[in-house]
C-alpha cells in the first residue's frame, strides 16, 4: 500500500507534499491539548495493527485500517495517518521520506472520506447499522487509497500503467477484508465504548461521565 521511494516523478511528489501540508493544516486546526494523546493512541494502534496479517490462499495481506482511523478520529484522522506514515518511514524505511506527501494524501484522504461515509449512519435506522456503516467506511477507506495510488502511478508515466492496473486489482481482496474487520470493530466499539467513535451523537447524560474528570 505504500509507494516506494524513487518511483514517482517530481511534480507528483510536490503535489503530494503541498496537498498534505494544506490538509494537515486544515485538519489540525484548533486541536486541543487533550486531543494529542488520544490521536497518538489511535495512531499507534493503526501502526501496530498493520502488523496483523490475514491469510488469503497461499499469501496474506496486512491490515491497513485507514478507514477505522477515520471512523474513530473524524477529521483528526489526517494528522494521525501522517504521523503513522512518518514513523513507518523512519522505523522501517517503508514508503520513504520524499513520498510521505503522496502516501498521506492517499491513506489520509481515504480516512477522511471513510469518516464522511460513517457519519451518514444517522440518516438510517436498522439492525446492525454500525456494522454495515463501519464496513462501508472500511471499504471506502482502502478503496479510495487504491484509486489515488493508481492515479499517482498512472500520471507518473506510461511505464506504470500496467502496474496501476495491477494495484487496483490487488485491492479487491483487501477491500473485502477491511470491510469485515472495520465493520466488526465499529459494532464492537459502539456497544462497549461508544464515546471513542468519531462523530458520535451522545445523549447529554452520557457525555458528563466520561469527560468530567479530565
Amino acid at each position, binding site marked *: 500500500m*505504500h509507494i*516506494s*521511494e*524513487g*518511483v514517482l516523478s*517530481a511534480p507528483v511528489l510536490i503535489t503530494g507534499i503541498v496537498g498534505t501540508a494544506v490538509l*494537515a493544516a486544515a485538519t*489540525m486546526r484548533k*486541536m486541543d*491539548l*487533550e486531543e*494529542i*494523546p*488520544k*490521536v*497518538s*493512541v489511535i*495512531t*499507534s*494502534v493503526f*501502526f501496530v*495493527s498493520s*502488523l496483523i*496479517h*490475514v*491469510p488469503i*490462499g497461499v499469501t496474506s495481506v496486512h*491490515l491497513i*485500517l485507514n478507514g477505522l482511523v477515520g471512523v474513530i478520529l473524524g477529521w483528526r484522522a489526517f*494528522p494521525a495517518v*501522517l*504521523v*503513522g506514515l512518518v*514513523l513507518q518511514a*523512519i*522505523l*522501517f*524505511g*517503508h514508503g*520513504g*521520506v*520524499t*513520498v510521505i506527501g503522496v502516501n498521506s494524501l492517499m491513506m489520509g484522504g481515504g480516512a477522511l472520506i471513510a469518516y464522511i461515509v460513517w457519519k451518514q449512519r444517522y440518516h438510517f435506522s436498522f439492525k446492525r447499522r454500525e456494522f454495515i456503516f463501519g464496513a462501508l467506511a472500511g471499504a471506502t477507506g482502502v478503496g479510495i487509497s487504491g484509486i489515488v495510488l493508481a492515479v499517482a502511478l498512472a500520471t507518473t508515466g*506510461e*511505464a506504470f*500503467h*500496467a502496474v496501476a492496473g495491477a494495484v487496483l486489482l490487488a485491492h479487491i481482496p483487501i477491500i473485502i477484508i477491511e470491510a*469485515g*474487520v*472495520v*465493520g*466488526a*470493530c465499529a459494532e*464492537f*466499539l459502539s456497544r*462497549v*465504548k461508544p464515546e*471513542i467513535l468519531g462523530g458520535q451523537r451522545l445523549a447529554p447524560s452520557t457525555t458528563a461521565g466520561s469527560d468530567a*474528570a*479530565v
Partner: protein
Amino acid sequence: MALDIDRYSNIDSSISRWDPRFKIFALGILIISIALFKTIPMALAALVIATMIIGMSALPLHFISHGLSFILIFLVPFFFIMPFSYPGEAAFHIMGLPFAWEGLRYATLIFTKALAIVLISFTIFGSSRFDVSMIALQKLKCPKIFVQMLLFTYRYTYVFLDEMHRMHTSMHSRGFVAGPNAQTLRIYGNFIGTLLVRSFERTDRVYKAMLSKGYQGELHSMVKFHSSFQDIFKGLIVVGLSMALLLSDYAGIYKVAERGWY
C-alpha cells in the same frame, strides 16, 4: 521485535557527534535531491555516498541489514514487474511476455535510489536518541503538535505491541486459527476494538498523571544543542554535494545515448 531505531545511538562517531539540527537538515536535502535523480550513474554515486555516510556512523551491520530486509520486500518485485510491463520495444519474449530493457533500467534506477535514501534515513535517526531527533525537528520549525504526536506515538507503539502479543497468545491458547473466512475478520475486528478500548483507558490514566505533573502542552528537555563550526562545515559539505550531484544529473552529462542504459 526490535523496532527501536535509536538502539545504537550511543555509538560514538562523527555522525552521532554532529548537531542533530544540522544533520537532519543537510541529510534531508541530500535525500530530496537523490529522489529527483534520473540517471543510473548518479543513483549509483548516491548509493556510494550513502554507504560512506552509514560507514562513518559506525552503526552495526546487522542493524542495517535488519532494516533493509523490510524495504527489499517492497522493492524486489519491481524487477519482475517493470521489464515485462514497460510499453517500450520488447527485446525478447519470456514465456510469451515481452521483455523490455528500458523497464529493467527503470527498475534498477528505482531500486538504487530507494536503497540510498533508506540508508541515509537510517543514519539520520539511528545515530541520535529519538527524543533528541524530535526536539531537533521542533527546532527546525516543525509544528509543535506534530512533534509531540510523533513522540507519543513512538512510545505507545511499544506498549501496544506488548499488549497485542499478550492478546494474541490468549487467542491462540483458546484455539484460534486465522483463516480466510468471515469469522476471522470478525474476531480481528473485536481484537482491534479491545486493543483500542484498553489502550484508551491506559492513555487516559497516563494523561491525567502528566497533567498532575504540570504538563501544559510544552515539551521540555534537558537536551541542549551546541553547534560549532564543524557542524556547519559538515552541513555545508553535504548540501553542496547534493546540489552538485543534482545539477550534474539534470545537466545530462551522463546521458550518452538517448535511449541507452543511462
